[in-house]
Every structure is written in structure tokens, then in C-alpha cells.
């Protein structure tokens, strides 16, 4: 299932994100940025907020853009979760992005390794616990934003179905969840995908779709073992990289 390609320079690359997932990432990136830029000046006031509102053509236009982006985000979120649940049920998708008990063990093991209490870092799967945390946060936080956003978009109509007290609650939750999402993105995603010494300046796999084989071996050893069961995980440092034994597909 997993595509493995050899580029002209002889390097071997393992597919990590199919084209549709890469497109999804770009869509989330775009909607997230638009939602943050149009949402922050609604939450906070001051000269900066007024500057953004003025640049976007006033509060009404800013809200229109925010709602349009929110609807795009909501449709995407619904489709994504729907396709994923269907894929899991039909057995065409792996549980690779959802947390397992093993992830908890990996997290504790990794922390022990950081603290020097354990010699080797745990071998991590295709998506490690740090990435799963972010994905799960994105999906669950996204769901909170979609549901509360819908309540704020049609408060009077929805009051026929839900208690009225949920409307101000949705207001508070929408605003706070957005702050949490923004902070996690700024700290965790920017570190994990850009500033971390392992990937600095940038982990490009979510755009190119492929991760180099040696990076996979180093950072996602368990997945490396699954894809290349015959190969050693710890090549001798003297041995040259890219042994020409890989299949092209």
C-alpha cells in the first residue's frame, strides 16, 4: 500500500501523505489562517484589531469572511471525519493517527529518555504520540469550533432545538477553544514541524508527500521496521547510505 520511490540521485523516499491528505493540509492551513485573522479582531479590541477590521472593509465584511471560511472548514471537517470513520469501519484505513495505549507508553518512555533515565528512545510508529496529539486536538477542537460556530451563526433558529443557555456558553467556548488552538499551533506545530532540531528548518513531507528513508528510520523506527522488515534499524555509521537493494515501488 505504501509507495516507496527512488529519486534520480539514488535517495529512497517513503510516502507519508497521499495527494488528498496534502490538499487537506493546505485547505486547513488556509481556512485556519483566515479564521484566525478575521476572528482575533472580533475577540480582542484595540488599535491593531481596528486596523485589521478596517483593512478587511469593516466588521460586517470581516464577519462575512469569517463565516464563509468557517463553513468551508465545517464541511471539510465533516467530510474528513465521515470518510475516516467509514474507512475504519470498512477496514480500508489503519488506526495510524488515533491514540493507543502504546502511545502513552511511548510518551512516558520518551520523557524517561529525555531525562536520562533510559538509554534508548522508544521506537515510534508512522505518526508518533506528539503528532497524534496534534491531530486529535485539531479534530476535537475543530468539532468544538464547528458546533459552537453553528450556534453563533444561527442562534435564534437553533434555540428551537437547544436550551437558550447554550448560546452564551457557545460564545465563551468558541472564543476560548480558538485561543487554545492558536497557542498549540504556535508552540507545538511550529516546534514539531519547523524549529525542532530533527526537522529544522521544515518538515516538508506534508507538502511533498514523502519522507526520506533514513529520516523514517530515525524518527519513525517502528514504521520503518514494518515497511523494511529485513533491514537493520541501526546501520553501522561507516556504511554508506542508500544501499541499492530497495524495490522501486
Amino acid at each position, binding site marked *: 500500500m505504501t509507495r516507496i520511490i527512488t529519486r534520480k540521485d539514488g535517495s529512497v523516499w517513503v510516502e507519508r501523505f497521499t495527494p488528498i491528505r496534502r490538499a487537506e493540509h493546505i485547505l486547513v492551513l488556509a481556512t485556519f489562517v483566515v479564521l484566525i485573522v478575521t476572528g482575533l479582531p472580533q475577540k480582542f479590541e484595540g488599535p491593531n484589531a481596528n486596523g485589521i477590521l478596517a483593512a478587511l472593509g469593516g466588521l460586517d465584511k470581516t464577519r462575512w469572511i469569517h463565516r464563509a471560511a468557517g463553513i468551508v472548514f465545517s464541511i471539510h471537517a465533516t467530510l474528513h471525519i465521515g470518510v475516516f470513520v467509514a474507512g475504519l469501519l470498512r477496514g480500508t484505513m489503519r488506526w495510524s493517527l488515533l491514540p493507543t495505549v502504546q502511545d502513552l507508553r511511548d510518551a512516558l518512555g520518551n520523557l524517561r529518555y*529525555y531525562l536520562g533515565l533510559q538509554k534508548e528512545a522508544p521506537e515510534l510508529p508512522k505518526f508518533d504520540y506528539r503528532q497524534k496529539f496534534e491531530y486529535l486536538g485539531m479534530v476535537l477542537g475543530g468539532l468544538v469550533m464547528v458546533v459552537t460556530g453553528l450556534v453563533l451563526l444561527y442562534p*435564534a433558529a437553533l434555540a428551537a432545538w437547544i436550551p*437558550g443557555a447554550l448560546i*452564551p*456558553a457557545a460564545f*465563551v467556548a468558541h472564543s*476560548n477553544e480558538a485561543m487554545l488552538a492558536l497557542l498549540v499551533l504556535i*508552540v507545538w506545530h511550529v516546534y514539531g514541524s519547523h524549529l*525542532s532540531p530533527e526537522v529544522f528548518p521544515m518538515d516538508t513531507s506534508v507538502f511533498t508527500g514523502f519522507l526520506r528513508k533514513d529520516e523514517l528510520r530515525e524518527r519513525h523506527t517502528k514504521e520503518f521496521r514494518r515497511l523494511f522488515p529485513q533491514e537493520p534499524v541501526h546501520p553501522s555509521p561507516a556504511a554508506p547510505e542508500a544501499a541499492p537493494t530497495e524495490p522501486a515501488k
Partner: protein
Amino acid sequence: MNSPLCKIPRSIAICAAAGLLWSSAAVAGDIEDSNSACLDCHDGEESAIHFADGATLTVGISADAWKKSGHAAEVRCKDCHAAIKDYPHPAVNFPTKRAYQLDRAQSCKRCHYAYHTKAQDSIHAKELAKGNQKAPTCTDCHGLHNETDKADRQAVTLRCGACHAKIAAQYALSVHGEAWGKASANVPMCVDCHGAHAILDPRKAAFHTRSWDICSKCHADAEKMAGTGLSTKVVETYLDDFHGRSNERYAQGAGTPGKPIATCSDCHGVHDIRSFRAAKKNGTLQSEVIVTCRKCHKDAPPAFADAWLSHEPPTLATAPLVVLIQWGYRVLIPLIMAGLVLHILLHLWRARVHR
């Protein structure tokens, strides 16, 4: 030290100052002499000016009232009645009494220019400019020949009511109007909300959008609200919710609202401002509030009124969900962020320092 005064020799400056003092004393006597010449005839005089439309205006004034007015010591009759130089006076050629009065009021700006420019921005000046001669000018509120320093607040309010009778009747029945005549000096009157000179058109969107700020002048002021039993958090809580936040942004220049967003007067009334206290006591608040919601949210179901958090900050008793969610995030956000930052620092430490 660039002032031209510095170049004038001191002796000359002193002489000039002394001269000014002397001349101002002389002017005061002068004014009295000049005016008493006019009052000799006009005090209580009953003859009248006849206008083309048949209206008349007596030329008599009360010398007693004039002497008590703010102008008596400083203004000559001729300063305002500039056309009159001598006796016999030139004929008054105005088609109507009102046209004559409006023309006379033009002399106020010769001294009170700042108020004149303010009043030029008012809806009244715009109406006058359009040719609506019923709109008031200076003398209609301040009086003629009996002006005092500060116009009497109640008298001015009654003066507004003389033209705006319907509104005056509504106001009289409102919580504000009810307090009229009671000892409290804090009763808001027309000019407190609309302004005295620069009276803006209250039908314009800009007025509606900013009107909460008018109410906040008194309702956010603990001193003025003392003894009324009213919350001073009304404006703060309003600005915290969707409506207030929106109107605050519009007021700060974020465009104009495509459709008006509720402000104080939309729920409480404009001139017929009412109290929700009885409804609160009787437990009928929700059914009364929903009526105000439906002014904008047409078919809102009764449950929609429960979205309203009242004018007190939410508490665990009044809005448990809001408070719990707020506190949940107040704990969750720092906790998650601290955990993530700690993880990052440990990773960096292991990768860079503690290899």
C-alpha cells in the same frame, strides 16, 4: 521669547494696560448710558412691529428682566440690533415674524461663535437651512432680553416639549420622567442625551450605534447610580456580549452595520424607557425579554431569551455553563501549554546539551 510683545518697551506696555483698564470702566458706564436711552422708550412699550403677513411683535421689553440678564453689563442694545443707529428707526422689512426672529438670532454668533459652530452641526440648523422655520434657533431656548448664564434645565426641557409634544408625553411616563421634580438632580433631561447645541439626528445609524455610550455616562457611574439600586455593570456586560461588542467596534470605525444591532434603547425603550424590575419580581422576565428579542430576531422561540445573561457578570448560580466553561479553559489552556513547553524544553536539552 519670540512673542512680539517682547519687543514693546515695558513703559509703553504698562501705559497700554492701564489704558485698557480705564477704557473698560468707561465702556461699562457707556453701555449703561446707551442702553438706558433705549429703555426710556422700550421699557413696557406696547406698540408693535407689523409684518407683511399680518403678524405683530411688540417692541417693549422689561427693563427689570434685562438688568438681571447676563448681557446687561456687557452688551449694548445696538450690538444685536445693529440696523438701528438712530431715532426714528429704519422700517423693519420682513415677510413674517419668524423670519425677523431668525434674522435677529444671527447676531448671537458675533460673540458666541463656538456655540454657533456647534449648533451648525445640529439637526435643528440643518432643518433651518432646509427652510423649516419651525426649527429652533438660539433665542428659542435661551430667551430674549432675559438670558442667564446657564439656561434653566427644566425650562429648556419644557421648551423641547413645546415642539416635541409626543416625545415629551412618552418621556413623562418613563422611569426618567417619573423622577422629574423629585429632589434628585440626576434625572436625565433631553439635552443630557441629545446634547444642547450639537444635537445630532437620532434617526441616523451613527447615533444608534453609539447610543449605549450616552446611557453609560450615568449608568456606569457608581456615584450617579447610588440609591437607585441599579447595577453599574450594565455597560460593561453589554460590551461583553455580541451586541455590545459589535456596536463598540462600529463606534471605533469598523464600518457601518448592515442591519442595526441592538443597543440599550432597543430593549429598554427610547423615550418611554421602562423598568424590568416588576417582570423580574413576577418571574415574567423571559416572556418580556423575548418580545424585545423578536424586534430583530423575528421568529425567535421563547428559549432564545435564556441566552440573555442579564446585566450582572455571570456567576455559577446565574449562568453555570458559561462560568464552568470559562474556568475550564482558564485551567486547561495554561496546563496544556505548560506541558507542551516543558516537553519541548526537555527535547531540546536532550538533543543539544545532554546528548
